[in-house]
């Protein structure tokens, strides 16, 4: 519920941000007056009509996804791409509605402001979101399976970055002597799975070892509508050079030989 409300707030704020960006571009280009030659009303009305489509394009880039880090160049690229589409839509709408053209530089201003503002706002909102979602009780209590080097790193990383997936318990197939990792309790072996899933209201499970139990962990997750994740290291892919690609429509994990950067596109 907390997440849904925050997500709605995020989407709504983005709509206003898009409109605000266009308004700012208008005033920067026209001057801080309401021109009668190029009236503000029809301009902002066209921007308002384009904004839901811009938001839709932005959503298709999965920028609002729970695990997406906002402060990355890739995310900036996605936002810029959505802004390009938003500005193009705006220009088309304006032309079809009013049958006139206007300053091309204004479109450039609108693109630059909406891209920059959206990126900065997303970085700020992500921080607020993470604080809100990890407040006690955490919104997404996460169970870690396996005490391994990888799982230790993962737990530390999730905690350090205040990731919404908040580790609340650890189980290990063989059992370990330690009591906790980074303050996360080790609750025992896999025979405690049902108990932990129920008592700690687990929403996400991350498998970090015990490959032979993947089917059973997945089965437990499916029966309780829990999101299941698995680290590539469980399959022996420890060098972090894997990619998820598609093979005839089926998702596959790919580890290929090193390639030049431009080969990524092909």
């Amino acid at each position: 519920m907390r997440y849904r409300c925050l997500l709605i707030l995020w989407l709504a704020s983005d709509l206003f941000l898009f409109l605000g960006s266009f308004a700012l571009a208008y005033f920067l280009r026209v001057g801080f007056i309401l021109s009668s030659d190029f009236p503000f009303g029809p301009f902002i009305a066209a921007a308002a009509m384009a904004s839901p489509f811009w938001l839709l394009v932005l959503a298709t880039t999965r920028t609002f996804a729970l695990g997406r880090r906002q402060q990355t160049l890739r995310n900036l690229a996605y936002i810029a791409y959505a802004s390009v589409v938003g500005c193009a839509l705006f220009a088309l709408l304006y032309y079809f509605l009013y049958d006139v053209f206007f300053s091309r530089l204004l479109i450039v201003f609108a693109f630059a402001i909406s891209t920059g503002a959206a990126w900065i706002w997303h970085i700020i909102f992500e921080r607020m979101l993470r604080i809100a979602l990890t407040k006690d009780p955490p919104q997404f209590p996460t169970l870690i399976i396996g005490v391994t080097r990888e799982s230790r790193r993962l737990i530390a990383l999730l905690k350090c970055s205040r990731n919404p997936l908040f580790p609340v318990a650890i189980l290990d197939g063989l059992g370990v002597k330690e009591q906790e990792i980074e303050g996360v309790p080790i609750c025992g072996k896999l025979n405690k799975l049902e108990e932990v899933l129920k008592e700690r209201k687990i929403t996400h499970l991350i498998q970090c070892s015990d490959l032979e139990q993947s089917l059973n962990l997945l089965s437990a997750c499916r029966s309780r509508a829990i999101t299941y994740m698995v680290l590539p290291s469980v399959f022996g892919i420890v060098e972090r050079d894997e990619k998820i690609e598609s093979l005839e429509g089926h998702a596959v994990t790919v580890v290929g030989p090193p390639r030049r950067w431009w080969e990524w596109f092909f």
Partner: protein
Amino acid sequence: MQAFILAGGFATRLWPLTEKRAKPLLPLAGKPIITHLLEKIPREIPVTVSTNAAFAEGFERWKQTIDRPVELIIEQTRKDEHKLGALGAVAAWISARRIDDDLLLLTGDNYLGFSLAEFLRAFHPPHALLAAHDIENLAHASSFGTVLTDPNDPKRVIGFEEKPKESKTTLVSTGCSILPRATLPIVLEFAEREPENVGGIFEEFLRRKIAIDCFTFREPWLDVGSFASYLEAHRLLLGEKVLIDTDSTLETTTCTGSVSVAAGSRVIGSELCDTLVFERCTITDCTLRDCVIDEGCTLEGVDLRGKMIRAGTVLRLG
């Protein structure tokens, strides 16, 4: 004499088969492991089974299926860390019931191939008696607790070694012994100090100069402790047979090796090899090798090898 079967372990290595079922209740050649054991105990010996609250319901149901009275002792714990310990459970029962009798102590997850009647005949109080399996291979013996006997009197136990690097003997300790009534106070005293150490009681006997006789056997002995040992026990007991419950269906299915299909299950157009299918499963167009499929699973169009599948799992090839 009274028989006491220890069946209170949580069997974490056999998860998920033991998620809601105690290890002694796992089926082996068509009946629970503990039933194989119970059938060997002479009927005149009263039997008590000790388990914990997590598995109580399963044992109550099992009790309804057997044709002799069995007393169930339910330890009120659902967590490993709250358990009394195996020897603690024995001691608690001895104290509560004021037992003053020789005690046949058995482990519920062991399959014993030898005759218990013969074992009982080898008991000569006040000596304690311990069944030792001759594994006939020194290297294999080092994976178990071994029993050292007197070179001049092979029926007399002189010591124990826990998983020795280089075993001196091929005799391995099993979960079958007799504690003479005279030793019960020592059991109570030792259980207070080391409630989990069932094997330790025999070392304590040796420390106190109480003689322990060794009953050596070469018949099969199976300690079902892991997935591999469970499958091995299944293969050994079933051989190259296919055990199909009368209330189950097999249609256009090929079975090789040891296969058992329990009541209410349907297997259609599949290949099964060395596999156990528990109750109420539906398996269609699958190839299963060395698998244990727990009850209520639905599998369609999948190939599995060496898997234990959790109860209620639905796997359909997308």
